[in-house]
C-alpha cells in the first residue's frame, strides 16, 4: 500500500486514479483503497496521530470522535470569494445530509485568520456548520487538500472516498458555468450513504490556494 508523503505526492496519485478510472472504471475501487489517510493506520492498529485542531473557542477538537457515517471537511478561507459564493450551497448540503448521518466541518487552515475573523465569516455567510481551525495544517496534510473551497469525504476507517470540488460550477479562474452540471460532493455523499463506491473519487477544485505556513 502506498502511504501518503505530502501534498505533491497525493496530487500525482490522484491523477493516476483519474486516468485509471477513465481507462478501467472497475479498477477504481482498488485504487481508492490507496487514497487512504495516514490516519488509516489507526484502523490497522498503529497509534493515532495527534491532531491539534481547534474549535472556534480555541479548544482542541477531534472531528473523528463521533459516530458519523461519513465526515465532510470543507476547507475554506475567510477572504476567498469562491468559498463565499459556495456558502448557500454548503449550507444546503449541511442541512440535507446532517440528518442522514453525515458530519460537516468547515476547516479554516489559515494560521493568520483570527478567531474573531472566523466567527464573523461564519455569521456573515451563515454557514451553520461547526468550524475548526487547522493552524498547523495537520488536516491539510492528512487530507491533501490544497484549495478553498475543497471538500474531503472520509468514512469509517478514515478512508478518503472523495476529494475535490463541491460541484463543477467553477471551471477555472474567471470561467464559471451559469449553473453546475455535476454535483460532485452531493453525489459522493449519496453514494457513500448508499454503500456504493463514489463514481468520481477525485476532482480538481477551483478557488484559492491554501496558504503555505509562514
Amino acid at each position, binding site marked *: 500500500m502506498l502511504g501518503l508523503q505530502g501534498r505533491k505526492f497525493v496530487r500525482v496519485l490522484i491523477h493516476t486514479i483519474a486516468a485509471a478510472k477513465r481507462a478501467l472504471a472497475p479498477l477504481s475501487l482498488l485504487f481508492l483503497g490507496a487514497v487512504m489517510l495516514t490516519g488509516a493506520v489507526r484502523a490497522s492498529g498503529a497509534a493515532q496521530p495527534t491532531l491539534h485542531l481547534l474549535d472556534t473557542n480555541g479548544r482542541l477538537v477531534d472531528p473523528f470522535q463521533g459516530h458519523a457515517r461519513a465526515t465532510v471537511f470543507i476547507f475554506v478561507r475567510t*477572504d476567498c470569494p469562491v468559498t463565499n459564493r459556495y*456558502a*448557500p450551497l454548503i449550507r444546503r448540503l449541511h442541512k440535507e445530509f446532517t440528518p442522514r448521518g453525515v458530519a460537516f466541518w468547515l476547516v479554516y487552515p489559515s494560521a493568520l485568520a483570527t478567531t474573531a475573523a472566523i466567527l464573523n465569516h461564519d455569521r456573515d455567510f451563515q454557514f451553520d456548520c461547526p468550524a475548526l481551525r487547522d493552524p498547523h495544517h495537520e488536516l491539510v496534510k492528512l487530507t491533501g487538500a490544497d484549495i478553498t473551497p475543497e471538500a474531503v469525504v472520509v468514512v469509517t476507517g478514515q478512508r478518503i472516498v472523495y476529494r475535490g470540488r463541491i460541484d463543477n460550477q467553477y471551471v477555472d479562474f474567471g470561467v*464559471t458555468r*451559469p449553473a453546475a452540471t455535476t454535483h460532485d460532493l452531493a453525489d459522493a455523499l449519496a453514494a457513500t450513504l448508499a454503500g456504493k463506491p463514489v463514481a468520481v473519487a477525485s476532482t480538481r477544485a477551483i478557488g484559492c*490556494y491554501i496558504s503555505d505556513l509562514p
Partner: protein
Amino acid sequence: MRRAVHLGAAGLSAAAVLGLRLALVPASPAARPALPRPPDRRVTFSKDVAPIINKNCAPCHRPEEAGPFNLLTYEDVRTHARQIVTVTASRFMPPWLPEPGYGDFAGERRLTSEEIATLARWVAQGEAEGDSRDLPPAPRFTPGWQLGKPDLVLTMAQPYHLAATGVDVYRNFIVPATVTTTRYVKAIEIRPGNPKALHHANILVDPNGSCRRLEGHPGDGFSGMDVRTESESFDPESHFLFWKPGSQPYVEPDGRAWALKPGTDLVLNMHMQPTGKPETLQASVGLYFTDMPPVYHPMLLQLERDGKLDIPAGDPNFTVTDSFTLPLDVEVLGVYPHAHYLGTDLEGWATRPDGSREWLIWIKHWNLDWQGVYRYKRPVVLPRGSVLHMRYTYDNTERNPRNPFTPPRRVVAGNRATDEMGHLWVQVLPRQAEIGGKDSRIILQEAMMRHWLAKYPDDFVAHYNLASALASEGKLDEAVTNFAEAARAQPTDATAENGWGAALEAQGNLSAASAHYREALRLEPDDPDALYNLGNCLLQRDDFAAAAEQFRRLVQLRPDDSGARGKLARALGAAGTVLAGENRLDDAIRDFRESLALAPDSADAYNNLGGALARKGELAEAETDFERALQLNPGHSQARNNLRLVREEMTRQAAPR
C-alpha cells in the same frame, strides 16, 4: 568573456531549478530567461515584488474596493502567493482582455513577462521578505471618490437587494439628473455602495425619460443587459460612460465634455455578481462639471450583426462580420466590444484606402465579466474611405462552460444574458466638425443608417434615423420617403407619423403634414410632440381654435412646458380675435382671459380683451385692460388710441343728454 560565460551558465542552472520547482505553473514564454538576465540574487518582496503588486494589484486589492482581499503588505501578498503566481501566469489577473500589439491602449493593465517570472521566482525561492529598506514607498490611494468631491452626486432612489446565490444579475436603475440648467460633464465616477457585488456599470443618457416606462414601479429598475433609449433631438450618444472597479475615472479633455440637460435621466446599467450572502447595493454617480462647452463632438459608431446571430446548438465556431466605410476622415478615440457568454474571439480592425490594415482590438479569449472600454493612447487616424471591420466568433457547444444552456440550444440576438450579441462600438471624432456647411456627425449618421438599411432593409429605426438625418440636411424628399418607410415598417408607431408630418411641413405641405400629425395622435393620443406640431401647423393655417385645442391638451399633460403655454396663449389670443371679428364677443372674451391667465404679460392680449369688452359696452373694464396694456408696453399705440376712445365714450355717456 569568461565572465559572460559564467553568468550564462549560472542563469541556465537557475532556470533549470526554477523549471523543476514550478512544475505546476503553466509554462509561459516569460519563463524563458531573457538577456540580459536579471540578477541571480534571491528575489525579495521588498525589492522585487512590492513594486509589481503596488502598481498592478493594489489599486483594486485594498479596503473599500472591488478586490476580494487586500494586497498591500508583505503578509497580504505572502498569504496569497501561490494564487498570485497562478493567476498572473494564466493572465487571469490583472484582468486585461486585449492582445498586446493589437491596439495601443491607455491604462493597460498587463504584466510584462518579466514581472510574471519575477513573481513565480519569488514564490519558488521561498517568498522572502527581504530588507525593508528596499521597500518602495507605499502607494497612496485616494479613499472614496477618485477625482475628489463631485460637483453633483446622484444616488439610486432605493437600495437593490441582491440574492446570496444565483446567476449574475444585469439590471438598470434610473437616476434622474437633478440639474436645473444645462451642465457640461467632463467626468463621471461611480461609487458602487457595495464594491464586492458590483462588477461593472455602464451609464446611458436618456434625455426623454423613455426608460421610465420599462420600470414596474419608479425606483425598481428593470432587467436587461443592453438598453435602448430614445431622443427627440439629434444628439447622438457620443461618449463611453463606463465604469469598472480599480480604474482611474476618465476625464474628457478640454472641449470634449458632454451636455447634460435638465430633465435627463441617467440609466445605470449594472452587472452584479452574487457573493454568497445577501447584498444590498445603492450606487451613486458622481458628476464632474466644466464651464467649457463642448467644441469637439465625437460620435459612437456601432458595428454589429445581430440580425445574423442565429447560432445553431453545437456550433463551435459561428462567425459574424460587419464592415462600414467611413464617409469622412476621423480619429478613432476608443472601442467597446460587447458580446455575451457564447462569444470567444472578438476582432476589430480597419483597412485604409491604401490597403494598409490597422488593428483596433483583438480579444482572443472573450470574458464578459471583464468587458470594458478601451481608449487609445493616441487616436487612430483613418482617412475617408477607410473600412471598419469586426469579426466575432461564438462557441455554442457544451465545451464552452459559459454556455447558458445545457444542453446547448439555438441562440439568437437579444438583451437577456442568455441571448447573444455582437457589437463593436467605435468612438470617432470627425477631423473636421463641418463639411460643406453640414455637421459631420449628420454625414456619419446618414452613412451609418444607409449601412444599417443595407443589412436590414425594413428596419424601423434605421429608416427613421436616416429620415431624421436627411431632414436636418434639407434633403426633404428623401426624408419623406424614409419616414414613410419607417411608418410602413411600424404602422403603429406614432413617432414615424410625427416625423413624416414634420418633413412635409418643412416642405410647406401643411395639409398633408396635419394629416400625419393627426394620425400620430390617433395612434398615441397623448404624444406631446405630435400635439405640439399639429398645434403649430394649425396655427400656420390660421385654424386658431383647433390649434388652441392641441396646445391645451399639451399643457394639461405638461403643465411646466413653458413653450406649450406660450403657444396656447398665442393660439387663444388669435382665436379670440377671430371670434371678436365674428362678433362672438363673449367667446372672444373667454379666450382672451384664458390667454392672459397663461401669459399675463401680453400687452396685445389686454388690448384685445379691452377691445371686445368695449364693444360689449363694458367700458370701465375695457379702460382697465387698455391701461394694463400700456403699463406693459407704453409704446402700444393701438392701446393708447383705444384708451382715448373708450375714455371719450365714457365721458360722452356720463354727460347729461
